[in-house]
């Protein structure tokens, strides 16, 4: 795996409280607003690294923020922290690709399609139990939506979604977003349940 902070090649620079304060002050003079924007920037960075197929998107996002904070600490004038961080993130992605390309691997270690490691039967059952419990916690409308929106394959799914659009009386795009948000809520609930039980 590529080391996002390049620890092996140079001394790691870690984010100090002073540098973080400087970063927040550059984002906004109001600390509360700055904190909200900082979280949004970090969320977008994690998304970007994930979309680009990075194995540790959180670590890479933190590295992009650290580099940005260091620049601010060094006295560089940054007008838009978000855009600047995204720029750093893209550079990191390029570094990541270059490092990957440089890695010499014997043929038998060439990348193979990855599969999710099989988990013990008990874990799978626990996950399903959590999911069912979280489904029960949804409102009847949302439960109905998620069970039908993601039901079926290809044509059947398309037909089902058209029916739901008519039933809920909303445009297809709106219904899609609604289903996605219910799905995210459900996954969050299931993850929390699993953590509590695990």
């Amino acid at each position, binding site marked *: 795996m590529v080391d996002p902070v390049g620890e092996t090649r140079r001394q790691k620079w870690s984010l100090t409280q002073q540098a973080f304060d400087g970063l927040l002050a550059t984002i906004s003079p109001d600390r509360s607003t700055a904190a909200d924007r900082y979280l949004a920037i970090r969320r977008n960075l994690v998304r970007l690294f994930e979309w680009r197929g990075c194995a540790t998107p959180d670590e890479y996002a933190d590295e992009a923020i650290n580099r940005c904070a260091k620049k601010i600490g060094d006295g560089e004038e940054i007008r838009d922290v978000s855009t600047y961080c995204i720029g750093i993130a893209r550079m990191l992605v390029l570094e990541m690709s270059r490092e990957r390309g440089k890695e010499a691997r014997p043929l038998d270690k060439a990348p193979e399609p990855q599969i*999710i490691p099989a988990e013990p039967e008990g874990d799978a059952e626990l996950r399903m139990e959590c999911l069912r419990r979280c489904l029960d916690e949804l409102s009847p409308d949302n439960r109905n939506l998620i069970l039908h929106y*993601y039901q079926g394959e290809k044509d059947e799914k398309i037909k089902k979604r058209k029916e739901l659009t008519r039933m809920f009386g909303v445009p297809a795009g709106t219904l899609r*977003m609604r289903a996605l948000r219910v799905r995210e809520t459900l996954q969050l609930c299931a993850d929390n349940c699993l953590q509590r039980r695990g």
Partner: protein
Amino acid sequence: MRSERDDEKLMVQYLLGNLSEEEQVRIEDRAFADAKYLGALEAAEADLIDAYVRGELSPSERLEFERRFLTSSHRRSKVEFARDLVRVTNESKAAQNALLERRPPAWLPLSNLFRGWNPALQFAGILALLISVAGASWLLVENRAIRSRVAALETERRNLETRQEQLRRQLTEEQDRTGKVAADLQKPPSVSAPLVASLVLLPGLSRAETGRAQLVLKPSAQLAHIEIVLEPRDDYPRYSSEIRTRSGEEALIRGNLRRRRSAAGDVVSFDVPTNALDAGEYELTLKGVAGDGRAQDLGYYYFRVQKP
């Protein structure tokens, strides 16, 4: 213009890592700038994950997906969740189907009734049943027709009642209107009271305390227009006026007045709010203001304010 379907395809290609750096940057920038597009990208990701767990991807897409999605633990958990969700939705579908299959057809209990009878009895029973069903159906149809006729008559009656009520209301309104018009005709014509009362002070007459002018302020009057007719000798660039009560109390001072031409000759005029003048005797002093600012008394006018 790119359609939604094209956008969707492009998003899938992006998520699978099949686009150039430039195209990737374009999609990312748009997603960060446009919440709706970001939502669509996330929805496309959810659908792509579902397609993977349902085995709907082509072998090459599957390979690309695994290279891109199974590397991070967060995305792996999304894939696991999608797998569980498919299982739950399949269970729900199966449960719905089972419910439909378990529900017996409506005619089944009747067929059970004749089970075990000999064929002749079965035939007679079925025949009797058919006759009963036909009779019941005929009665049902007839009953429905009668009900529908009664309902139509009832609706007609209600419509007539409503129409009658409307006509009655219209008649009452018409009668009221006619009565009002007749009453209005009998009333003496009202003259709208003026909002502005006028007082013209003439030289010679009002300047002497004996020739007292009258200013009648009716309750409706809001302004009193006071006009002072000048003598030819009263030639000044500006004028001022002071109104005092008989006891010498100052009621109003107006400065910077200019002469103007009217039908009565050269005049100085100004308006006074009627609430500034109580009923009683007043003295008005007219002053001529010279170019150097010095004021010269030109005359004293006396008038009486009446508030009926």
